[in-house]
């Protein structure tokens, strides 16, 4: 693993300035809003809007200070852990987020794992038994699955398995049981893509010369497929898995709404509706952090599988 630690450090160094840039964007949302930010935030409570209130809140949020001062104050508070107060619930943003973010990570990660495992297994099996009924069946299924939007799948599953059969809870709930339907709904489209990609990648790799070499060495067919071919075939798969993680995270927004799960996604939607700016900012930052961290992990896995990357 020579180049691997160096590679990790390099990726970290890359992400830090990106994170700062994103923070600038998130911060500056407040200044892109139509009209006066305070009025915008209070849009649901027009009765409160008055000269004094606007002035007080402007001072409270430090909006009268110069831009760069505002930014650094905001950033400083961010790092300190003071993410402001939710306009809607009057509770600290940090509290609202910290009670919920695990649920979202749980959902996103489990959907990721589901789609990766099922997708890869289906893809490899299809490739190894090309043209068999399994192959045709799973590829057809993948075609359909890729077209099913999360909300439709989610609603269907909710209606059938939760309400009709009562196998799973209809709403809310933490714990494994409540995780099953949302995971499948969220992961289904990605599973389909994974399966197709793994299959075509495997088929391509199996045609490579080094597979011929492996066979000519007299290796057992199982070794040829699962050691030589698979490792190479997984390279593009891991890339795509990584790139699609963003979609997975984003999908939690919808999934949590459908299954009424407590999580960042639902809060994100609610805070946008209620113009709860501190919450919006907080949720975005958390999403970005989660996203960047998991991307980093995927990059490392990628570099582990394909040694040529470590020196790139």
């Amino acid at each position: 693993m020579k180049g691997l630690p160096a590679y990790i450090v390099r990726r970290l160094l890359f992400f830090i300035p990106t994170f700062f840039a994103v923070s600038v964007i998130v911060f500056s949302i407040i200044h892109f809003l139509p009209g006066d930010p305070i009025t915008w935030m209070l849009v649901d409570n027009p009765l409160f809007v008055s000269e004094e209130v606007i002035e007080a809140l402007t001072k409270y949020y430090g909006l009268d200070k110069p831009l760069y001062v505002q930014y650094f104050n905001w950033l400083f508070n961010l790092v300190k852990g003071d993410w402001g107060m939710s306009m809607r619930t009057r509770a600290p943003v940090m509290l609202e987020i910290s009670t919920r973010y695990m649920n979202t990570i749980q959902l996103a990660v489990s959907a990721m794992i589901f789609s990766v495992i099922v997708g890869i297994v289906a893809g490899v099996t299809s490739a190894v038994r090309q043209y068999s009924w399994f192959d045709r069946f799973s590829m057809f299924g993948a075609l359909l699955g890729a077209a099913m939007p999360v909300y439709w799948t989610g609603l269907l599953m909710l209606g059938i398995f939760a309400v009709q059969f009562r196998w799973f809870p209809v709403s809310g709930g933490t714990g494994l049981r409540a995780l099953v339907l949302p995971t499948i709904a969220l992961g289904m489209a990605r599973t389909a893509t994974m399966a197709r990609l793994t299959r075509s990648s495997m088929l391509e790799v199996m045609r490579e010369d080094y597979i011929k070499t492996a066979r000519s060495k007299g290796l057992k067919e199982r070794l040829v497929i699962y050691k030589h071919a698979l490792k190479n075939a997984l390279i593009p798969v891991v890339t795509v898995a990584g790139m699609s993680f963003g979609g997975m995270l984003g999908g939690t927004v919808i999934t949590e709404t459908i299954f009424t799960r407590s999580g960042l996604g639902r809060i994100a939607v609610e805070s946008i509706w209620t113009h709860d700016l501190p919450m919006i900012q907080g949720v975005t930052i958390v999403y970005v952090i989660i996203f960047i961290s998991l991307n980093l992990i995927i990059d490392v896995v990628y570099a582990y599988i394909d040694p040529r990357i470590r020196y790139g």
Partner: protein
Amino acid sequence: MGEVTEEGGLFAEEEGLQMYQTQWDRFKLVVRRLWKNKAAVLGFFVVVFLVMFCVLAPYIAPYSPLKLNIPERLQPPSMSHLLGTDQFGRDILSRLLYGGRLSLGVGIISVVLGLIPGVLLGLSSGFLRGNVDAAIMRGVDIMMALPSILLALLIVTVLGPGLINTMIAVGIGGIPSMIRLVRGKVLSIRETEYIEAARSIGANDWRIMIRHILPNCAAPIIVVATLRLPSAIIMAASLSFIGLGAQAPTPEWGAMLASGRHFLTTSWWICTFPGLAIFLAVLGLNMFGDGLRDALDPKLKS
């Protein structure tokens, strides 16, 4: 050391995109390949039919999509209402047809909206290199640090809900990947000799970009755009689903799903048909897009 003359292989013919000189020949070859792909043809016709029905909505829809008709609310599919009615008595079929214009239209427009800046920025970035490239790529990295739905949500936050803003939000989401794609293609073509030749004749940068490089990028751009359409449609419908896109009573498919949500078990038709419509559109586009990709580059076929 001598060598035996190598004349031809096992087969006398060799088909390849490179062998054809004119753009028209290449186009015909692609169409021929596409035609052979049954799935792609099927997908194409599914999409064409859907689009046709939606475009013809004013002429074939049996009822008005917006008119309330409370006495006939929540009726299951029947002869008078082929797909049933929703909680306000509105005919689902008519809403579906009119809504398709919105859902499909939003998808198409957002992709086009994202295409133009994406291609232009990608061209500039790849061709001009230097500081321009660095700046654009930084922007791309930052935009890609956010999951695309989040980006869309942020944009909708600033601009407010509504269908037009949805188009903008979804369109912008597609820009970073388009920039990367075009830039990559430009970088690989750039070093080929005929660009050097064009330069040596004194052609200026813009001319080179548009007349020489762009046509070569056309193929992957078309494929990516076609494959992005389904995600754009889904994302627009998602935004409507959570209430940030199309507002009631607009019959956009995502919004229809949202409004039918509470009647899932009692009046299942309210949700199912819009979802089915989205599904069919996406499926058709996926099959066609895959076929298009295979037809343009047979090496990728398995």
